[in-house]
């Protein structure tokens, strides 16, 4: 073919085949099997499933069975799903409040300093999440540096219990996802033409007015992308609530893990996973409608600036 000749040496679409097949086998297939498992029955010994159709797992989401065999409405899991939403929402709000100033600040540094500063933001992301989460066990401990500091200043009589509280979970989540908020906002802010801000000053605008009326609307796509990149993974977080929440503040992921671990109810864990996937998908669609492409582009370019 003539077109093919003009593209000599650029390779063919078939080069992507092994990679795509691999992803179908190890990303798509696991998702399919979870959906299938969620409609099967619990195995006698608890590991794996029994191949017998059942909607029990989904019924378990809302109802619990009493010993007498009757079913009654049980809000336990609804509560956990609601908690997960709440945690993800708080995390998004706090990371936004912290990320906006630093993203704009970095974007207004001289160009040659910016890449270094952004690299500094991303370094912690590349280190083990387990270790960073563990670090907060040390930091928030009753004998930890924060309580020691407050004690030394005489601000508190006895240590403030912080570890194993919802507060600790939120701190861990905010810490985990902060870079995901900073990067897209920075990507937007960097493209912002600060001559617009200058023009606004010339027209008599004060700092706050310029920030609110000129800068913020311009970084909106970055903010939306950031909310997406924080909210979705925060919703499915496992480590922060597991290690810092002390079991008191379970999120969906912890319940899923328990079903595949000690609780040994794989179909129920699978059903919860399906639910989490559906919620994730709905949130994605909502954001897509909200952002009308612009945020998606920023989101991708912020990934690329990071890698």
């Amino acid at each position, binding site marked *: 073919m003539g077109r093919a000749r003009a593209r000599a040496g650029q390779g063919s679409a078939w080069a992507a085949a092994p990679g795509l097949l691999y992803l179908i086998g190890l990303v798509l297939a696991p998702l399919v099997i979870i959906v299938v498992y969620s409609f099967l029955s619990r195995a006698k010994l608890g590991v794996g499933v029994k191949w017998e159709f059942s909607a029990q797992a989904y019924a378990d989401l809302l109802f619990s069975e009493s010993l007498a065999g009757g079913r009654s409405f049980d809000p336990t899991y609804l509560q956990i799903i609601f908690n997960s939403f709440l945690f993800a929402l708080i995390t998004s709000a706090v990371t936004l409040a912290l990320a906006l*100033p630093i993203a704009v600040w970095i974007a207004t540094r001289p160009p040659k300093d910016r890449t270094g500063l952004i690299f500094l933001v991303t370094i912690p992301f590349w280190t083990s999440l387990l270790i960073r989460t563990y670090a907060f066990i040390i930091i928030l401990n009753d004998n930890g540096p924060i309580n020691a500091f407050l004690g030394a200043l005489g601000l508190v009589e006895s240590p403030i219990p912080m570890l194993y509280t919802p507060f600790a979970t939120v701190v861990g989540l905010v810490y985990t996802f902060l870079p995901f908020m900073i990067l897209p906002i920075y990507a937007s802010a960097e493209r912002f033409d600060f001559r617009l801000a200058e023009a606004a000053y010339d027209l008599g605008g004060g700092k706050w007015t310029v920030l609110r009326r000129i800068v913020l609307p311009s970084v909106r796509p970055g903010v939306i992308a950031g909310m997406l990149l924080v909210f979705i993974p925060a919703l499915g977080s496992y*480590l922060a609530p597991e290690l810092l929440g002390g079991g008191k503040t379970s999120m969906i992921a912890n319940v899923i893990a328990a079903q595949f671990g000690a609780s040994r109810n794989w179909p129920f864990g699978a059903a919860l996973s399906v639910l989490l996937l559906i919620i994730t998908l709905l949130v994605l669609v909502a954001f897509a409608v909200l952002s009308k492409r612009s945020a998606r582009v920023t989101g991708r370019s912020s*990934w690329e600036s990071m890698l």
Partner: protein
Amino acid sequence: MSRRPRGTGESLKDFPLFGAISAVVFAFLYMPLVFVVGYSFNANRVVTVWKGFTLDWYLEVLQNDDIQRALMNSLRVAVVATALSVVLALGLAIGLLRLARSGNSFAWALIGAPLIIPEIVFAIGTLSLFVQMRMPLGVNAITLAHTAFCIPFALLPIRARLKSVDLSVYEAAADLGANEWRIFRRVTLPLLAPGVVAGALLAFIISLDDFIVSYFLAGPGGTTLPVYIFGMIRNAITPGVNALSTLLLLVSVLIVSISYYTSRRKR
């Protein structure tokens, strides 16, 4: 810098408190790393009560047989997963530029999926798949799963590099009589090398640091370093956890720095 920004611009760009908040955020970002490293030198068994400087925890950690075994497992997984994901990503990068639009969005959904799907779902999904197929858990199972989520990390630097290649070099090579394979080996690959190195390094640390997927697929013999550390945290927190963590942090920071510099150079 030789050139000052024009006139009034610079101070007008500053917003009150933004610099201060940025400093606080940077401190927050590095605080966990500082405390993990700092307390790894604590002579006291109780991590957070400082008693004096010691390197004993490092000796203890490095001489522990279980830790050595976990380290070997981690390295085996990371090396193989990196190699596999880089090869697959190389094919994806080249193929996707040639693929029709409709196929492309499906492909990107597949590639991006491991980044968007909650990791716990990916972990138990892979676990279910392997159990269903009667595949033994352990190092090999972990490697297969890691490869899948290492692909996007390997792919992006390679793709960025590939997009910057001037298409006329292929034409020139073809005009000189090189066949497709020869062009790939002698032209494409050398041009992509910095992207391949950066992608490989990122894939390596993503695999090395993974906890959740490894935890569910480890089985009895597949304990990796993060899985081992999780066990330590669950049992008793001593500065030993910090010493081991510090070593792992050091490797990550070192590798990501190398990756950063290789992908910056010659761009």
